[in-house]
């Protein structure tokens, strides 16, 4: 188990390195130019060349990549080429904002979707199951910006319960923050709901049809006891893996939701820095997103191993 974990962790670093190379290469082969982004369309070629020189953007690509990588690994993430601010505190603040949004979404959606998925699984093919499955299937299929705009119009504009722009002031308290973030987190929850509920349902259906559950029921144990003590433990294993991979997918949703609600998070940043060819910011943001993504998958696998002795003791 420990060896397996080490091997998985060992794969994370080369993967991150590959991501950094890919982004650097992509940013270089394209016609866009950071000097143009900063100076706008009316600058003379000389001015643009001078700025490129000042930014160090006129050195050969491998030299710049090596210089960037060398300082990145020792914690110097450089300055944003567009905003002229150090990248690290800026990106980390954005990360905190996005984490707050993601945590709210996950804390609300996991219990609800697990609960409804289990109910559906226990009522296979009956009306409750069909209703939950169809609603889940439909909600999961709707892009975040669509459900986001609908809740924005209903709860933000018509009812006026929530702000339509999620930018809590600097000294905002927890309640105020939650109030601002609830609306943007709803689209994220709707997309996750269907996936998690479907996995929980499938796990439940499979386990309830197994021999050991039949034995438990036939020997007269109360149904509630069979479900809680015997079934859930096995039924939810695949679901945990799915939740882990969905955390990664959540980041994709963050790009959309943060754009819609103009919320200063990591998703908006990855979009803005890619559009603005701001390579230091883009690299830092993309690597953070990739690292979170890989670690959440790894954590899910670890949790499954902890819950399942058959995996824990093999290898």
């Amino acid at each position, binding site marked *: 188990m420990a060896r397996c974990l080490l091997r998985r962790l060992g794969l994370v670093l080369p*993967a991150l390195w590959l991501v950094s190379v890919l*982004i650097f290469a*992509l*940013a270089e082969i*394209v*016609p*866009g130019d950071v000097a143009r982004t900063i100076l706008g369309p009316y600058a003379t070629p000389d001015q643009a060349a001078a700025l490129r020189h000042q930014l160090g953007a006129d050195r050969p690509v491998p030299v710049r990549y090596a210089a960037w990588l060398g300082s990145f690994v020792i914690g110097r993430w450089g300055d944003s080429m567009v905003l002229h601010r150090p990248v690290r505190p800026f990106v980390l603040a954005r990360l905190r904002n996005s984490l707050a949004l993601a945590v709210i979404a996950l804390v609300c959606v996991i219990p609800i979707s697990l609960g409804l998925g289990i109910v559906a699984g226990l009522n*296979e*093919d*009956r*009306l409750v*199951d*069909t*209703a939950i499955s*169809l609603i889940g*299937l*439909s909600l*999961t*299929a*709707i*892009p*975040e*910006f*669509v*459900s986001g*705009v*609908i809740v924005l*119009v209903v709860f*933000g*504009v*018509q009812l006026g319960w929530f702000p*339509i722009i999620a930018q809590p002031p600097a000294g905002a308290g927890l309640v105020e923050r939650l109030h601002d973030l609830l609306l943007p987190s709803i689209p994220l929850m709707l997309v996750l709901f269907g996936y998690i509920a479907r996995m929980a349902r499938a796990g439940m259906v499979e386990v*309830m*049809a*197994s*021999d050991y*559950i*039949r034995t438990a*029921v036939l020997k007269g144990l109360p*149904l509630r006891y069979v479900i809680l003590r015997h079934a859930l433990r096995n039924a939810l294993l695949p679901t945990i893996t799915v939740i882990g*991979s969905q955390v*990664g*997918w*959540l*980041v*994709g*949703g963050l*790009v*959309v939701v943060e*754009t*819609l609600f103009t919320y200063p998070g990591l998703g908006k940043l*990855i*979009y803005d820095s*890619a*559009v603005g*060819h701001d390579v230091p910011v*883009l690299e830092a943001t*993309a690597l953070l997103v990739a690292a979170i*993504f890989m670690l959440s*998958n790894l954590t899910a696998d670890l949790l499954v191993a902890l819950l399942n002795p058959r995996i824990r003791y093999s290898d």
Partner: protein
Amino acid sequence: MDAAPPRVGGRPVLGRLMRSAAVLAGGAVVVFWVFAALEWRVITPYDPFAVGPAHPLASPSRVHWLGTDDLGRDVLSRVLAGAAPVLTIAPAATLLSLLGGTTIGLVAGFHRGLLDDVLMRLVDAVMSLPVIIPATVVLALVGRSTTNVILAIAVLFSPLVARTVRSAVLVEREREYVDAARLRGDRSFYIMFFEILPNVTSPLIVEGTIRLGYAVFTAGTLSFLQLGIQPPSPDWGLTVAVERAFVQIAPWTVLAPALALASLVIGVNLAADGVRRALAE
């Protein structure tokens, strides 16, 4: 004997009935939007591109059923015409990913060996990505256009198709008809595409319908992020992004295209669910 889960009462008839009704409704919605995408020039009450400076942001009325947008254009006409871009991009991307994925899956599954290993590692890597992120980064850096959106979706989706095809091919290649074809001296290209491919069509169709649902989702999202088609296109995602600024004074301008896209994705997914169940039985 199967150990059925303990039932407390009631029979699954109602549930099944609801499912078939949902499949039919989903199919009808898809047919409607395909019709709108093909014939919007005929059925739109106004020219979706004609600006009307006299009445910007007019609320829904008898004259303009769904109101007008910030440039005074008729929202209903733009919503009907807006079916065309997404119903071009999503099917085109799906078809390309099916072509690419089928070829990769057939070759990998049939030849196995090192090629299969390398391809499947690559597939695992692409599959684990949250599609929107790489698509956003690549499109923002490389350039925004409809063609690039189609290519990006096709490239990101074909590994998923490849995996499905490969696992079907792994079963088929052990069958007797493949042995017979080999003994007959058929070339492996012929065996792959003319012997095995016809036998893996049903998982391929199911995969195609599922991918189509995701392609509509992704195409809409990339349009919303303004990484694909540009104004003045009536594309739904783009319209939501552009009219977002007027959400407080004219919510109908964003609500109409949003609900249109919601109905299309739900329709496609319900229909896909029906196809999957029909082919599984």
